């Protein structure tokens, strides 16, 4: 038996050695002895398919462990170390890419551009966290998101924000989501990636304004916990929706709440719902009347939002490089002589006629018009629903995490004196 094991090991060793040799270049690269190494134009560099699938497997493992620590084990420490691993692996090692947040754009582009095919890895990075959230709440935010991990680890003295401010700022992620989908669907840009404030830190390389933005978020995050997750993250919108329907969700207490209120200040994200006050919820007439009015106003919000979005399409579409170039050449024809303008020179060298360029730009602008209606209507719906929710009273008797907003970080669990 031992002999067989030895033979198998030798065989495996030879196999790996051969595989390694086979991957070596037939002719070695010339060595000029300057010590200069060619920088790669792509960050991060493309990986072998097997390694991409490894990332998916690691995501699955991390999500499973995060869900286990949050719901079953109830271990804040476990989640903390898991987020450290995520930060190191998905953040610094993988340079912040591939990322579930950015994958929204790939999905949007593949839905609207038949010429673009999303990779299976990207699709899985988009879907897996959503599926996990549907079952276990936002455990992705707790332990599998490098952006969330970085902010979470740097919370120093969080302050509580008033509800009106949280709700108002909470509209921004919806707006960001709308614009990100619109820009991706029209093939304009991947703005989530372009304006990711942390990716420059992961890669130790970014434009100056992005460095400033990243540092600003970190400094702000020391006192306003997870500012990006709460007031910007577009993927958080989808996770919020999924988490509201989650089958199992983190609970503050493992048994019955004893109303000790010790956990009331434990959440740095203001994601704990308090028991309802019976006295106030009794004033139902005010609530019902307002509910009816606000509910009836929702279609109006949608229409006005869509109208405003469609009206803004001309301005927004200027972000598209084709539209921008076409308008630049129309308004400033002399720019053709500007050899330093690489966009113009690249267009001129492509041999494409001005008419074709304008036609292409017009098609894109038309897409922005339709997209403007949809994005604006969606924002109108979000605003109308947010207002409507202010007159909806749900009866709560215990302190419990808000299923949509809770990041399942597990901080509150340590505050609860109730043990199983």
């Amino acid at each position: 038996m031992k002999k067989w094991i030895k033979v198998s090991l030798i065989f495996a060793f030879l196999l790996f050695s051969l595989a390694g040799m086979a991957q070596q270049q037939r002719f070695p690269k010339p060595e000029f002895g300057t010590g200069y190494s060619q920088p790669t134009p792509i960050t991060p560099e493309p990986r072998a398919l097997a390694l991409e699938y490894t990332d998916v497997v690691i995501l699955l493992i991390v999500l499973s462990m995060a869900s286990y620590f949050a719901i079953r084990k109830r271990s804040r420490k476990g989640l903390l170390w898991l987020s450290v691993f995520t930060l190191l692996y998905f953040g610094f090692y993988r340079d912040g890419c591939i990322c579930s947040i950015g994958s929204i754009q790939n999905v949007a582009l593949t839905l609207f551009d038949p010429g673009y095919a999303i990779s299976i890895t990207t699709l899985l990075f988009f879907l897996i966290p959503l599926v996990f959230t549907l079952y276990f709440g936002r455990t992705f935010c707790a332990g599998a998101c490098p952006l969330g991990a970085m902010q979470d680890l740097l919370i120093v003295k969080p302050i509580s924000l008033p509800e009106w401010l949280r709700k108002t700022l909470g509209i921004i992620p919806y707006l960001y989501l709308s614009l990100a989908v619109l820009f991706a669907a029209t093939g304009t840009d991947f703005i989530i990636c372009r304006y990711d404030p942390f990716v420059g830190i992961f890669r130790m390389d970014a434009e100056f304004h992005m460095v400033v933005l990243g540092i600003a978020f970190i400094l702000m995050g020391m006192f306003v916990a997870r500012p990006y997750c709460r007031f910007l993250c577009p993927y958080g919108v989808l996770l919020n929706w999924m988490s509201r329907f989650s089958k199992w969700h983190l609970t503050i207490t493992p048994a019955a709440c004893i109303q000790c209120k010790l956990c009331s200040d434990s959440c740095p994200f203001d994601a704990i719902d308090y028991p309802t006050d019976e006295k106030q919820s009794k004033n139902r007439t005010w609530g019902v009347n307002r509910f009816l009015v606000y509910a009836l106003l929702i279609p109006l919000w949608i229409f006005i939002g869509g109208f405003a979005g469609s009206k803004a399409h001309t301005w927004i579409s200027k972000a598209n490089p084709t539209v921008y170039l076409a308008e630049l050449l129309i308004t400033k024809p002399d720019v053709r002589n500007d050899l330093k303008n690489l966009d113009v020179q690249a267009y001129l060298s492509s041999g494409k006629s001005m008419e074709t360029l304008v036609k292409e730009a017009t098609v894109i602008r038309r897409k922005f018009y339709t997209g403007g209606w949809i994005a604006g209507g969606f924002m109108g719906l979000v605003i109308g629903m947010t207002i409507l929710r202010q007159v909806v009273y749900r009866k709560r008797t215990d302190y419990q995490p808000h299923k949509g907003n809770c990041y399942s970080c597990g901080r509150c669990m340590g505050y609860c004196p109730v043990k199983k």
Partner: protein
Amino acid sequence: MEQDNKLKFSLNIALVSGIFCITVALLLLLNFMQMAKNKPLESKALTSLVKRLSQEPNSDELKVEIRNFDLLARKAYFNSQWQVKTGGYLLLFGAIVFALSLRVFIGLKAKIGEPDVKDENDLTGRIMTQRWVMITGSVLIVLGLGASFASVDHLQKYDVNESLAEAKPADDQDKVEVIKVGENPQIVQPATTDSTKNGIPANATKTDTSKVAPVTAVKITIPGINAIKANVPGFRGPFGNGVYFQKNTPVEWDAVSGKNVIWKTPVPKKGYNSPVIWGNKVFLSGADNQSREVYCFDRSSGKILWKQLVDKIQGSPATPPKVTEDTGFAAPSLTTDGNRVYAMFADGDIICFDMDGNRVWARNLGLPDNHYGHASSLIMWKDKVFIQYDTNKSRKLMALNATTGETTWETVRKGKISWASPILADINGKYQVVLSTDPMVAGYDPETGKELWSVDCMSGEVGPSPASSGGMVFAVNEYAKLVGIDPSKNAKVWESDEFLAEVASPVAANGFLFVATSYGVLACYDAKSGEKYWSKEEGPGYYSSPVIADNKVYTFDTSGKMRVFDLGKEAKIIGEGNAGEKVTTTPAFVDNRMYLRTPKFLYCIGKK
């Protein structure tokens, strides 16, 4: 460690790391500003040194100083970059230590206090939320509507003609692109007399070269057959067949001794295109990776009458395409109808000048994806300029309106990329545009572009153009075949694979067909049957296409040696010449004279 000590320790670490972070951040900022301000290659000192060098070009000391300064500036730049990178890591490390120590300090100091008495259902809070969300929504709507007023849709207002008219050139250029063309060009046809005997055609348009001058209502004379035969309207003479209708053509000359050299004029830029002649004017083009030019020489004196830069063409690539050394940027020969001259270059630019060098129109057909470089020459018939526009991506025959440059028709063809040029073949009394490519030789209707016949017989990278004589078409390519085709039967009549040309095109007249190979054999065949009459190996090889004039076959091998053979069933050399340098172009004949382009000169050869 006791609680107090832990507190002190964490606070001290936080303080030290905080100060460290601030220091590193300030240094980084300083470094960044310095890097942004001082770009190594834009250094004033370096610029002034380079300026000095232009005044003292032979100063080795100055060159060494510039090199040292350049190296120093680059070192400083990369050193700064290294500092930024290292500083970034230090700052990150410091920030992590600072945040963690501060977190430990605050964690140790924190106590679980009295829980706040908060009320989620606070009515005031809800009303505040409603108000602020409404305000936010309203602001977004106002911004959206405001954006519609603040932005102008320039695409809707775009007008093609207006835009082109506005595209004025830079002030430092005295020549202008004229793309806007006349709406009602008057075409007089057919003129069967030679309208160019006195040199410049009377109806040639003269325009002010310093102004944007749209050409309007230009009177164009379509040359008749006699005029075409009297001139050299394109590559390989009238109809592109390599047969010249001239008498008393010279058979002896020597560039070294100057024997029978009437004049020779240096050609400013390199090009593999052959002389094109109309009236008293000889046209050539030249180009390198910096610029492209079209030249007009006086046929009598060799003096350059005009030289025009080809630039500012809409869609023209900013950087030249990659071409091989033996193709260059100006391989296609020009074409002319006596009214205007048309030139094409490797970057897909095609340009039209009138006979006096005034630019009429120009356009870019798209950068040709061609691994050697675009080489197919232009040819004209009536009011159309034909282009065999073969690229690795697509193969097509284009017909441009000679007056406006607009595409009259284009025919997408099957097959592979070819470097051959189109010819005009008289098939049953009607001229057809004939092309040779892998896998077929085909004829097209010059009026519509419709494919009239096609015979699959070619293979490989086809360089030689086809030839036509006596209602038959001949095509050849190395590693393929030499074939005789009867277009009226849409069939191959005969084929041979003994002597195959790689570059030089075949030529046929009086029932004879000649093929010149790149390994130095000139072979003569019976054009009708394909029977070989003779073959003769002389010289290093032929790139220049053999041509027929005055019942003589003119050949130039790559060493520049000219051999003139008798047009007959026996290999008989009746004349010799020597260019003294490499010859790959094809000579042109007008009025007892031969015109030849060598890498450096344009020669006029004949009896003085």
